[in-house]
């Protein structure tokens, strides 16, 4: 076995401490016989010794505090809003949490119905962020439309379903690069009731009149629940944007039966 092994490979393995005693002995024998190999081994072993002498440096003492300060600041923005309130409430008092979800749905519904217009909502930075309703709490839905979103660099599918006075739009997406997933709808035809997502999907969610946008990475499922203001159908658009990616699909939302 060792007879056939390239001496250069044996040399590298010796440096990594991977050679068996027999292989080490074989390497020593070859080094003794071959001046060129001897020079190469001296060079590499010297490098190994030198690298071993250089230890790790201590990081700046304030690094941990700085990281945690930044995370807490970001965490207050990302998790400290509806997501945190909702999660905590569900974990501790489910009944209260469903009440909270209902109240939040009513508030968002009011936004969509125009009780609070865009002027009252203010700038995009002031738009609500987070999760309001859990998926699957709004009764039975029938599928209305389904469209593939897949493109180079990501896989995805969009589905719309219709329930009693409610439309559910769902996007499932898997990507190895960051994407922006956007649901767009006519704010006069639909009022947003809630938003759900799979546990692994953690990106920031921005809810605005006529639009829900999500910062996506990895694999995730997103559901938007819309209250239909009319029995007449109105389309809904799903858009995926990312580096070199731009996919847009219009989905039917169906009639009220």
């Amino acid at each position: 076995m060792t007879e056939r092994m390239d001496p250069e490979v044996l040399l590298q393995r010796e440096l990594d401490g991977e050679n068996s005693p027999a292989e080490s002995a074989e390497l020593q024998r070859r080094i003794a016989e071959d001046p060129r190999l001897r020079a190469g081994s001296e060079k590499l072993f010297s490098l190994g010794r030198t690298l071993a002498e250089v230890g790790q440096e201590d990081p700046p003492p304030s690094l941990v505090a700085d990281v945690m300060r930044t995370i807490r600041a970001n965490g207050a923005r990302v998790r400290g809003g509806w997501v945190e309130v909702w999660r905590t409430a569900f974990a501790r008092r489910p009944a209260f949490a469903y009440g909270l979800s209902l109240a939040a749905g009513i508030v968002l519904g009011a936004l969509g119905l125009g009780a609070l217009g865009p002027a009252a909502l203010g700038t995009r930075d002031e738009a609500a962020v987070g999760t309001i309703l859990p998926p699957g709490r709004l009764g039975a839905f029938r599928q209305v439309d389904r469209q593939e979103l897949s493109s180079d660099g990501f896989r995805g599918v969009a589905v719309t379903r219709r329930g009693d006075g409610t439309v559910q739009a769902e996007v499932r997406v898997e990507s190895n690069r960051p994407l922006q997933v956007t649901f767009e709808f006519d704010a006069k035809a639909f009022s947003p009731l809630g938003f759900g997502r799979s546990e692994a999907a953690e990106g920031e969610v921005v809810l605005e009149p006529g639009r829900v946008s999500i910062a996506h990475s990895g694999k995730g499922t997103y559901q938007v629940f819309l209250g239909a203001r009319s029995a007449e159908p109105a389309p809904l658009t799903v858009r995926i944007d990312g580096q070199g990616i731009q996919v847009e699909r219009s989905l039917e939302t169906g009639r009220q039966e």
Partner: protein
Amino acid sequence: MVDGGDDHELVERCLHGDLDAFEPLVVRYQKPLFNVALRMVKDREDARDITQTAFVKAFEKLGTFDRRHRFFSWLYRIAVNECLNFVTRRRPAAPLPPGLPAADDPERSAEAGELAGRIQGALMTLSPEYRLVVVLRHFLGLSYAEMSAVLLIPEKTVRSRLHTARERLADTLRSATT
């Protein structure tokens, strides 16, 4: 290698809203991450920024961490990507003459010792891909399998890349001393 037996437990707590659970992970991995960054970019302040950014990004992406894998591999990969992004952005940096301390920080280099300065100078002559395998292997002590998991390249490629990197580094160090 760092023992990260309860890493997953801490990650779970973070995902359930316990931000404080991330702090032990930062404490545990700050040194290896900082040293990867330092050896990749040479400057302590830049290394500090890279390390901080890597931790913050890791926290933000915790939901995408696949719990079937080891946390440190995932975390190191984020740090490595940050280093490579930084090096790519900074690109103009010409290779330093080996053996010379960093020009912008001569006092520190002197304190750290001539040896560390020589090694760092020689490392900076390697391309980032070669520098990275030397750093992961010799400064962090990762195995080939771990390096393969961090770099997302086959173990065979790791071996071949490290082989070449060592040869070049040894030649650079040798030529600097003769």
